[in-house]
């Protein structure tokens, strides 16, 4: 019977599994949530009860002296996952903890527009958890506090997960000379500047608060935020640990104060304060908006009517005032020529020959839209794109058939995964080298004459080189080592042989009259040559 053969085949492959026997007897591995450098995180289901759990499994070859999971064994707090069991053999150590039902803060914060009050509340709950950890004997430093590791339960309470980076690295290394934690959230001393202590976690907490408030982990002077919040973030993230808060309880009380809006005010200044408040309110109402937790942003005054139309289309608000909170909800915008579209599918159907040149000149208005994730424009004249620089959430960007001021601002959109800069008159796109997540890069129909003007992009998988005039692509395997697909239609690249050195290349898209030459080049390989005119 065919099925029996398949079953035997799989059984034989797994007969010699490296995971501890008792671990596999107790739990079903349901999903691999993460795996890197000899560490795997699994979602589990307990065989007898169906209860969910999470396991961290360590390959002993990579972690020969992991001290085990004693870390949180005696700590019982609703904000921390309970230790359920540990299993080991000569190959693996598996630590099983309670699965915390809920949503990671990274998703939660993007879906909900958190108010200052909600942020200070979340922050103080995290401080409570940190206080428990830091007052443990010996103190436990989490060392990887980031939105992905904070789970918001359906009832709004929070829990801190992913513990096993804590402490043992210190014992392993003897000194804090390793890099650990997540880049961006790790404080200077974690790169080797000084002895790590509880303030390491407070630094990461400060960065997390900044991300919640501004959408960016970096300090951005152009985004104005609540002054008290700014002070808390600044003090959490001060370069020298001495200038930071001493403990989580101090941060908690500062957050509570910022959230309540209460602050001891000297009587003398009350009058001045009232006058200032009135003035602010008047200005706010005059401009047709109210001030939220963000400090006043010039929402009423869009520089570009077309961008305002695109914003209103996304929000479904044809008229009436738009508040800063409204603008925070704009995640995507599509503009082609003088038209705006609700969805990407509509934008992608547009043809350049059917549109007049649009009127856009500047993208400065985008600074009022910090949560923008997808932004696409087609068929414009010369556009100053510097407004893209501060979009900390931007993941997809498409600029087609226009002239832009240069690619530099785009390089500052550091979360960018998808960049299509087609027919933008560019002679250099190396600025995009600073986008570490870039997977798709389309630079077709620009004035790029050599690979050097494209630059080095180690994460790019899909590369668009259509309509380019270049002599060759020698060195492409060093500059873009992970490329899997390349589009070449209408390109005039004289020597394509560099492509054969790409180790992951799976497919090349060509037009019919390029086919023969490309096929010859790749004969005897597994690379697919696909014919398409577009």
């Amino acid at each position, binding site marked *: 019977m065919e099925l029996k053969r398949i079953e035997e085949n*799989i059984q034989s492959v797994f007969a010699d599994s490296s995971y501890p026997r008792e671990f596999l007897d107790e739990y079903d591995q349901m999903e691999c949530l993460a795996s890197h450098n000899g560490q795997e995180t699994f979602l589990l289901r307990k065989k007898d009860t169906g209860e969910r759990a999470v396991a961290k499994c360590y390959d002993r070859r990579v972690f020969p002296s992991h001290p085990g999971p004693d870390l949180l064994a005696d700590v019982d707090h609703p904000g921390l996952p309970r230790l359920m069991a540990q299993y080991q053999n000569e190959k693996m150590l598996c630590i099983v903890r309670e699965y915390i039902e809920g949503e990671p803060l990274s998703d939660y914060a993007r879906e909900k527009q958190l108010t200052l009050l909600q942020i200070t509340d979340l922050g103080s709950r995290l401080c409570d958890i940190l206080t428990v950890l830091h007052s443990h004997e010996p103190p436990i430093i989490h060392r990887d506090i980031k939105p992905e590791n904070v789970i918001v339960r359906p009832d709004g309470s929070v829990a801190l997960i992913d513990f096993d980076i804590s402490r043992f690295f210190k014992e392993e290394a003897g000194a804090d000379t390793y890099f650990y934690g997540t880049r961006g959230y790790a404080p200077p001393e974690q790169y080797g500047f000084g002895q790590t202590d509880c303030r390491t976690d407070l630094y990461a907490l400060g960065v997390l608060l900044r991300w919640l408030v501004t959408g960016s982990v970096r300090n951005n002077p152009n985004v104005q935020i609540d002054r008290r919040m700014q002070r808390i973030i600044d003090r959490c993230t001060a370069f020298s640990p001495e200038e930071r808060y001493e403990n989580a309880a101090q941060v908690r009380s500062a957050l509570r104060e910022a959230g309540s809006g209460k602050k001891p005010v000297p009587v003398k200044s009350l009058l001045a304060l009232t006058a200032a408040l009135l003035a602010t309110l008047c200005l706010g109402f005059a401009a047709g908006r109210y001030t939220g937790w963000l400090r006043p942003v010039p929402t009423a005054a869009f520089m570009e009517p077309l961008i305002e139309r695109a914003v209103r289309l996304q929000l479904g608000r044809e008229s009436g005032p738009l508040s800063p909170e409204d603008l925070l909800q704009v995640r995507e915008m599509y503009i082609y020529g003088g038209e705006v579209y609700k969805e990407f599918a509509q934008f992608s159907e547009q043809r350049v020959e059917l549109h007049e040149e649009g009127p856009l000149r500047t993208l400065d208005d985008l600074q009022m839209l910090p949560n923008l994730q997808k932004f696409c424009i087609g068929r414009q004249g010369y556009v100053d794109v510097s407004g893209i620089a501060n979009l900390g959430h931007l993941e997809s960007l498409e600029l087609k058939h226009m002239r832009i001021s240069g690619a530099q601002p785009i390089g500052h959109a550091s979360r960018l995964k998808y960049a299509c800069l087609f027919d933008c008159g560019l002679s250099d796109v190396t600025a995009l080298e600073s986008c570490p997540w870039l997977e798709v890069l389309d630079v077709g129909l620009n004035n790029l004459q050599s690979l050097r003007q494209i630059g080095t992009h180690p994460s790019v998988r899909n590369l668009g080189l259509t309509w380019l005039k270049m002599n060759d692509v020698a060195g492409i395997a060093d500059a873009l080592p992970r490329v899997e697909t390349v589009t070449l239609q209408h390109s005039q690249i004289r020597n394509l042989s560099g492509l054969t050195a790409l180790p992951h290349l799976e497919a090349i898209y060509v037009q019919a009259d390029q086919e023969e030459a490309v096929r010859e080049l790749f004969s005897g390989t597994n690379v697919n040559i696909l014919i398409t005119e577009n």
Partner: protein
Amino acid sequence: MAEEKKISTDELLRLLFQERSLEQILQRTESAYLHITFADYLSNWCKSREEVPEQLIRRANLEKSYGHQLFSGKRKPSRDTVLQLAFAMGADVASAQEMLKVARKSLLYPRIKRDTVIIYCLHNRVSLVDTEIILQDLGLPILGGRDQ
């Protein structure tokens, strides 16, 4: 090789499929899918095959109203549901991984026995029903079981 008994992901895959580039396929990202929702993915698929959602929902062994909510985007699928739909669509491993990516679920991971069964069955075009039988015979949780 002989003294190293631990089965690595690579070795496991080679054993199963003797196919060099499967790991690359497992990791592949398609640019076209970065922009779309899972609901759109389903609708597009049905449109391109000129098939009505009901047929797909039935083949995926899903409850009808739940299936329609997936199509309308009102509900988000569980990982098992995505895989059931992958079987119902006759997807290969790469397409199934793509669907998981679109639905923002963990990809199939060949060091997990259950995932390996699913990879193997997708690769060899074993039907959803037969795949469930294999999972059950091996004492593994079936797709769309009690967690759903």
